[in-house]
């Protein structure tokens, strides 16, 4: 169930299939990021791959017949026609063609008819059709799933393909469950089911005694989590600096060295990052400080190079020192940026209030505190996110009036219009309408939780909120996830008795967050008897999430505010 290994093994197999010799890897844009997420350049060079090309309409015409071409493409119509064009005038000696997903017979025929020179040696499906970010996390890099709160057909297909390829690469044939309240998750579940029955041969997999479960969720059920300020390292970097294909763009920083314009943050290659990926901001600060102190003391020692032995020690350590200091320098700059943002945006105060709103602590004071913070001139996006959280979480009788007045304050503070629109959009986006009785039930639960927290005494007040997904998966592990709300897709042999759970694959339409990834990581660590994989249409931070919200609610007229019980 290791996604990174699964993708890696496929690619290693590709380089082995074609035997020894110089190789070129011909990819499309998506497969390029799929490969680069799991392989470093030096690693792939050792597999005799010396050239990386993208299949585009404007490819170079340099022919190198002495090279073998490993072609790794998504089975899209555009790719097929480009591949046909390539094969009619082949630039390389032999072609080993791999598709990242299921391809139709007609497409194979079309390609075969273009191969007049008989250069193709292999045509295979290798199901590495997703971005493996961590052993337990994948993304499909879909910034937005649809409009009008329903699917964009293209993205529905892409999500289906993504899930199918994850299942095939892990050799899992799961029971499908979906979120009953979401039309989109039902559609996706059905699409996946259709492929199961269409490709019976492929899914005729050897299974253990306990059948895996695929749980399809909708982001609309929990729009709160992506709005909260996260404090673990990876999530924070994504929130404040944005991680894109494992890369962080730092070029906006003044007088930064050119080699740090784009830095790679890849747990597979960067041990320091790997060790600290889930640590919180405070812990990392400590670690960085001790690292720097260590280096400083070393550097200090090196400054007085009186004796030859001093000199020698210095020179011996120098290359390693250089290399380490490169990694440390990268993280120091990132940390510096993070703490700048924290101060500049007043994030400590903002986050504290966010958590209070999200966890229903001291509800009576929320509006007052939001007002106070807005008066402190926090940035537009933080101010409006607070109002959004309030809008999502408050259901009391006068909350509508309060909300209107809060929006008035935003307006008076000259917050940009699109932020205010987003407050309404987020409310349209939210799917859950909490009924009164459910509310009280939830409150009771909340109170117990708070007690539990107080017992621990010094629980981190910035990370009190628990993502809904964590609760759901915990329920699933204990076989307590309600079948009314998360039913099995019909006409699958439903387990009548209490089913056991071992392998779980969770997919979230509308994206996941790195906070949720951390929650799943912790669940995996705490429950060695289960294996949980998390995936989403993308990995969101608050701003990319709000973009998706904006697009998703485009064309939705009815505001949920109107349906509220007043």
């Amino acid at each position, binding site marked *: 169930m*290791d996604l990174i290994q*699964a993708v890696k*093994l496929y690619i290693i197999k590709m380089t082995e299939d074609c035997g020894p010799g*110089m190789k070129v890897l011909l990819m499309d844009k998506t497969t390029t990021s799929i490969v680069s997420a799991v392989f470093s350049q*030096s690693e792939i*060079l*050792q597999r005799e791959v*010396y*050239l990386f*090309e993208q299949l585009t309409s404007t490819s*170079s015409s340099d022919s*190198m*017949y002495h090279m073998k071409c490993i072609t790794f493409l998504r089975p899209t119509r555009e790719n097929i026609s480009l591949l046909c064009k390539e094969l009619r*005038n082949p630039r390389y000696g032999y072609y080993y063609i791999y598709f990242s997903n*299921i391809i139709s*017979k007609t497409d*194979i025929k079309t390609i*075969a*008819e273009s*191969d*007049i*020179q*008989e250069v*193709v040696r*292999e*045509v*295979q499906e*290798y*199901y590495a059709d997703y971005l493996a970010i961590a*052993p*337990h996390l994948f993304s499909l890099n879909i910034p937005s799933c649809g409009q009008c709160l329903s699917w964009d057909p293209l993205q529905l297909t892409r999500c289906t393909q993504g899930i199918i390829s994850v299942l*095939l*690469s*892990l*050799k899992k044939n799961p029971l499908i469950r979906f979120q009953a309240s979401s039309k989109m998750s039902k559609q996706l579940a059905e699409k996946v089911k259709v492929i199961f029955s269409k490709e019976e041969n492929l899914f005729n997999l050897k299974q253990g005694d306990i059948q895996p479960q695929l749980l399809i969720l909708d982001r609309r059920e929990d729009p709160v989590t992506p709005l909260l300020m996260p404090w673990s390292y990876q999530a924070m970097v994504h929130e404040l600096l944005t991680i894109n294909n494992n890369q962080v763009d730092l070029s906006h920083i003044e007088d930064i060295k050119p080699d740090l314009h784009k830095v790679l943050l890849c747990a597979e290659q960067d041990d320091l990052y790997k060790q600290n990926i889930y640590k919180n901001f*405070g*812990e990392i600060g400590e670690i960085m400080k001790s690292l720097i102190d260590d280096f400083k003391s070393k550097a200090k020692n090196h400054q007085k*190079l009186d004796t*030859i032995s001093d*000199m*020698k020690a210095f*020179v*011996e350590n120098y*290359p390693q020192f*250089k290399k380490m200091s490169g990694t440390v320098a990268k993280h120091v700059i990132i940390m510096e940026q993070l703490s700048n943002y924290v101060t500049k945006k007043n994030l*400590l105060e903002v986050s504290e209030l966010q958590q209070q709103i999200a966890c229903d*602590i001291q509800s009576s004071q929320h509006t007052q505190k939001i007002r106070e913070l807005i008066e402190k001139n926090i940035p537009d996006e933080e101010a409006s996110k607070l109002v959004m959280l309030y809008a999502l979480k408050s259901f009391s009788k006068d909350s509508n009036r309060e909300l209107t007045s809060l929006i008035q304050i935003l307006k008076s503070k000259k917050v940009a219009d699109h932020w205010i629109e987003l407050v309404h959009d987020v409310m349209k986006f939210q799917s859950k309408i909490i009924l009164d009785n459910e509310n009280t039930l939830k409150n009771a639960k909340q109170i117990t939780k*708070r*007690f539990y927290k*107080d*017992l*621990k*005494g*010094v*629980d*981190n*007040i910035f990370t009190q909120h628990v993502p809904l997904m964590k609760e759901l998966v915990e329920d699933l592990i204990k076989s307590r996830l309600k079948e009314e709300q998360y039913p099995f897709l019909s006409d699958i042999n439903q387990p009548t008795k209490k089913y056991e759970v071992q392998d779980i694959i969770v997919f979230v339409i509308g994206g996941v967050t790195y906070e949720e990834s951390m929650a799943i990581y912790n669940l995996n*660590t705490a429950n*060695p008897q289960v*294996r949980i994989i998390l995936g989403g249409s993308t990995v969101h931070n608050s701003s990319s999430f709000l973009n998706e919200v904006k697009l998703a609610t485009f064309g939705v007229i009815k505001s949920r505010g109107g349906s509220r019980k007043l």
Partner: protein
Amino acid sequence: MTEAGEENIVLEGFLCPICKVDFGVDLKLFLHFQEAHSEDQDLVKSFKDLFGKAKEKILKNDIGKKEERHYVWEPQEIGEVQSHFQYFKHCRNKWVEHFVMETNKTVVRLEKLLCNLPQDPNKRKTHEQTIVHWLDGKDVTRCPDCTKSFNITRRQHHCRLCGSIVCHECSCFLPLAKAYETINETAKNQLTSLTQSSPSFRLCVHCGQVLENREQIKYRDLKPLMCDYYDKIIECRNKIENDLLIKFNQTYNLLKEGESSYLTEANRIRSDIVKLAEAIDALSNRILKLENDTNSSKVTTKNIRLAMIQCVQSTVLAIPALPSLKEIEEIAQRKREAAEARLRNGQDLDKPKISQSVSKRHSTQKNEIKLRLEDGWSPVTNANVNSDNPVVEQMNIIKNYIKQAKEAYRFDEVASLERNLQELNEEYFKMQNDSGNMPGYSTKN
């Protein structure tokens, strides 16, 4: 985790335990608690005892959790695959047959056209038309390739090989010399004058493509010089990885057992490996220096060089230095003593103990070897040029390190050493300048 909270954001002062608000003064907190949580208070009290013990437990668990734990899953096996090659071949075979027929037809026509080709343009046209039937221009109003209609500016042209009508843009030209080449005849002498006057045949793109493909197939098997070098590199590499390294490790282990007779053998293997590594380095460098006309081949050669440097580094660095004869004899001596001791004390009694101590010695020996492995470059004394200035001395030492590092293929170290040398150089010149002003203080750093 509790500690984490403290480290992260230190919450100090008079906090309300329930709502986590800082009240600054104890009195305020007290009042707040009375007001806001008076009901809760009873609740808290009643729960307090109940949870007192639980709390301890929870906290302990948390501390336990703080140790870095990762989930470990069994190793991933490769996922499902599905091959379509059989079906692909089936489809391709049908098509290739069709294509071969087409090619043959075209080539035969070309042969006919070239046979007894008249020099005069008018006669040539009749000759061409007798061999290939030309389509009637009246029937064709649009170019079949680009579907644009013919008019005064877009005139009709006939393909000399299939007789179809195309526009100028959708046609290509086949030079006579090349045409002869295609049918495996060299242009005859008497025709050279002709080639100048009428340079080529007009063809439609389709026929052009057919001939072009045929040409290409001829060139496919040509291998550039780079391939020879590369094959040699791979040969060297295979020899190192599949043969020499294994042998070396075997002899090295024997040496560690105290078998001094293998020392020359090990030295020989070691130098063989280094020689092959040098060869790889030289060959890949030669590939890099090859003339490359295209961008892709430039990138390729650069990457090959990069990969080979990595490979050389990892193999050469993986070979440990050999122990000296004296050290081996020491090991042998120790082993003998151990054996004797074992003989002296009853075998059964002390067996575990001895084996333990032996393994201990082994491990210390390993450590020693390791240390030597890592201790890098040593300053060569004879290189110390007599100089009063310590900076000059240091520069000389570094120069020596560079030399040694180069010999050991540690190129990244060479680079950093060179940078270091550069810095020292600058420092030295600065000092020289300073000392010009203040003679007598030249050595002060």
